[in-house]
């Protein structure tokens, strides 16, 4: 790799680049899925390549290749400069980046059990046992899945950075579909859309204990078919941890991305209501709302040692005591607003240019038990596990649906309800948060599929949260 790095850095500078970085990734992945008692697919993927990012004549350019040779490094660097010079034809000012401490480091990721050392047969056995546990009459689809990845990333820059870091991820989940011929209901464990993911080894899959949750979700999905519809109206809601993760993701994570705020994502993902004039003064939520961006949590899917600009991982507040106090930023966007860079530039692979992404965006724990959250509700709904999500491009009007809900009456969980949904305006919703469960209920949920950018990039992020309570929310908007 060293030869390619040197070749690309030298060639780009020779071609006129004022800044160059090169990032290479070698990645192995394994995906196993079972469906209805049989192995649906097993796939092993390996990929490697590198990307070169440059500033030349004040414009940005990026090029990449899967051919890992010094000659290709030189060609790609020259192409990146050619692209940057084309960019510079429309520049309004030269691209500038904030200063930061340049690092040289090597960061392996220790895990208890290397997932790639665990035999495929053992993984299949766990998935099929979970499948068997879900085999309840009335279930038409049973799915179980595991995902593992291991990558080695090297980052070097013309400023002298040279960082190598390892990343190992494990994830798993199960789900069922029940139908009575007229409607379908789904249930998942531990979360929807593939389950839960962490930067851990195979021990994470063992901790999830998929098998012992199979029967419960199968029976719940059957029961949902005959459950009553979620009532409509304005009422209190308590959101379970996995749904809270998505609520944080869509209504706090994305709007605090500074590239969106500055209009750089207007073409696709959209912009943000959190304009720069709101920084430090805007009341985002109630006093108990504290949100951190924390890339330093050792096992969090959104964590890392260094971001893809070589900035060391940090923990910063985005919302403190309900007030909006920080953005997710990059060296360039931080410089535009005169902020300190916090390290949120990430690319989903070697062939993509880094953009601002969530790290681990967390709602800090509150002081209540789960029972206390429920006890404080006269009439409301407990909702769990995301089923659908939608939010406008400024991140204000959102609507979420969950797989399952229960009515809460007089401080007690009552009857199961189906098709629960709720809707609101982001800051109005968070201002109505009056209870957050304590650290005993806090968990960092891995979200492996956050889409953003053009070309689209799918990023692994995470959200630490506990269940939380919100007052007077519009519920039950399913037609």
């Amino acid at each position, binding site marked *: 790799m060293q030869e390619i790095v040197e070749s690309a850095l030298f060639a780009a500078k020779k071609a006129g680049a004022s800044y160059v970085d090169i990032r290479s990734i070698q990645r192995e992945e394994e995906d196993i*899925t079972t469906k209805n008692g*049989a192995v*649906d*697919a*097993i796939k*092993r*993927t*390996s990929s*490697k*390549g590198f990307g070169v990012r440059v500033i030349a004549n004040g*414009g*940005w*350019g*990026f*090029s*990449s290749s*899967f*051919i890992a040779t010094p000659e290709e490094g030189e060609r790609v660097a020259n*192409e990146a400069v050619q*692209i940057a010079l*084309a*960019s510079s*034809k*429309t*520049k*309004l000012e030269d691209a500038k980046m904030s200063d930061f401490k340049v690092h040289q480091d090597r960061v392996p990721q220790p895990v208890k059990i290397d997932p790639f050392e665990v035999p495929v047969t053992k993984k*299949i056995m766990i998935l099929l046992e979970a499948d068997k546990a879900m085999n309840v009459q009335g279930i*038409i689809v049973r799915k179980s899945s595991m995902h593992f990845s291991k990558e080695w990333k090297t980052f070097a820059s013309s400023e002298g950075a040279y960082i190598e870091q390892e990343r190992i991820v494990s994830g798993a989940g199960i789900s069922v*579909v029940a*139908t009575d011929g*007229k*409607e*379908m209901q789904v249930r998942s464990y531990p979360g929807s859309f593939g389950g839960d993911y962490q930067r851990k080894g195979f021990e994470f899959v063992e901790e999830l204990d998929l098998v012992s949750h199979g029967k419960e979700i199968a029976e719940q999905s059957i029961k949902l078919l005959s459950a009553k519809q979620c009532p409509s109206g304005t009422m209190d809601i308590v959101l379970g941890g996995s749904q809270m993760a998505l609520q944080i993701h869509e209504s706090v994570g994305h709007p605090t991305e500074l590239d969106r705020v*500055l*209009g*750089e994502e*207007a*073409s*696709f993902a959209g912009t943000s*209501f959190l304009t720069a004039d709101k920084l430090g003064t805007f009341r985002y939520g109630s006093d108990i709302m504290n949100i951190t961006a924390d890339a330093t949590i050792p096992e969090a899917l959104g964590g890392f040692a260094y971001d893809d600009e070589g900035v060391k991982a940090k923990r910063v507040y985005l919302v403190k005591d309900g007030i909006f106090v920080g953005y997710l930023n990059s060296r360039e966007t931080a410089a535009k607003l005169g902020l300190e860079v916090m390290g949120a530039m990430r690319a989903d692979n070697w*062939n993509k*240019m880094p*953009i601002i992404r969530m790290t681990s965006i967390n709602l800090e724990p509150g002081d209540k038990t789960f029972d206390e959250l429920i006890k404080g509700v006269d009439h409301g709904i407990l909702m769990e596990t995301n*089923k*659908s999500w*939608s*939010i*406008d*491009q400024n991140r*204000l*009007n959102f*609507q979420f649906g969950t797989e399952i809900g229960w009515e809460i009456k007089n401080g007690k969980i009552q009857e199961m309800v189906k*098709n629960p*949904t709720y*809707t609101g305006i982001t800051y109005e919703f968070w201002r109505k948060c009056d209870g957050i469960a304590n650290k005993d209920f806090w968990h960092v949920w891995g979200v492996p599929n956050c889409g953003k950018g*053009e*070309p689209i990039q799918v990023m692994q992020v995470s959200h630490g949260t506990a269940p939380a309570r919100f007052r007077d929310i519009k519920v039950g*908007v*399913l*037609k």
Partner: protein
Amino acid sequence: MIGKERVLDILKNVISLSNADQTEALFMGDESHLTGFANNYIHRNVGGKDCSLSVRVAIGKNVGSAMVNSFSEEVVKKVVHDAILIAKNQRENLDFVSFAKPEQRKDRDFFVEATANCTPELRAEYVSKILSKTKAKGFIGSGKFETNALEVGVANSLGVERYTKLTISTLKSVVLTDTSSGYSEYSSVDVNKIPLDDIIRESVKVAEKSQNPVSIEPGKYEVILTPYALAELIGSLCYIALNARAMNEGMSFLIGQIGKKVLGESITMLDDGLSQETISLPFDFEGVPKKKVMFFDKGVAKGVVYDTLTAYKEGKKSTGHSLPQPNPYSPYPMNLIMEGGESSREKMISHVEKGLYVQRFWYTNPMDPRNTVITGMTRDGLFLIENGKITKPVKNMRFVESIATALNNVLELSKERKIIYDMASVTVPYARIKDFTFTGKTEF
């Protein structure tokens, strides 16, 4: 791009190295470039080349697969070895019968050299023309100009051997003012057919006309959906209803409805990868030539698309709609075409007493797939129509609607249609639809 001869050599080599009962090899190579712009300048300008070689083997009913992004001799040997090892450690997939069998048909390329050879300088030139207009108006230009060249080869030990090349270019313009935005987009295999002036005109005009929007109350409205907006709804149907997987998994509203009239009389919809009105590969990722599949003929449900696995399971033939396997989203309609009507955008507007003109939907998501209920927001242009005329811009609103109900409530379709390309191609007209349900609103 390494060319037909080299790709087929690699694929044949894979097959010769495998001692499995059946072996399939898929090669995909791409050279992609995207010039992104925002705030009236090019802010993200990227390019690169990548490839993938996927090997699938079957030993009895044990299927294993492995993929790598290289094709050196050493790597090819390893990927074949890995796929076989996985298959040996696999359990039987009782639904598996065979990989695709060869079918004779001459393939044609959707490949244009000018697109493949498009330079960063040319893309910057197009973008500059958009930005000079937005700057002159005091607006902000954003969007992307993307040019991609792909090559795909598939071969298997049963005799399938196919290769094709494809180019795609897409120019998108999103124009922002202080209080509004406008949108236009066009995709073509030929970069020279991108109608730059039309894209500038539409996106700037919509942004200009939608300034200072008013807030109106949610409720049922008659709507005119542009092809951009209608494609968002129809694209969701591709996933939740129009494929054999959705039928098998209890998700499709067409379960038990084939042969019955489920949509309005004006709705005829099919998948046709060979049409001139789409952007397509001539065969799917298992090497099966694409077949024309009728979904709805004058509102009557006719069928869905299949890949090899789902077809064998039902004793049918693949329709040529496999995605790269293994894939939880396969089969999938990649070339949906909806027939138009006799009307026009202007006539439709003149026929609305009170309603909404929707330029685009955004962030749609199925809430109840079995009943095709979907939610989403309007974006980049929403207008009130009163007494046959567009009267004022409206702040964006949330809708919750059943797609099937909406397609039963179609009052008019335009003759004009547009190809909307976003990984798959959807060709649709303008539509006037009654009783479309909006449930919420936002602040802009």
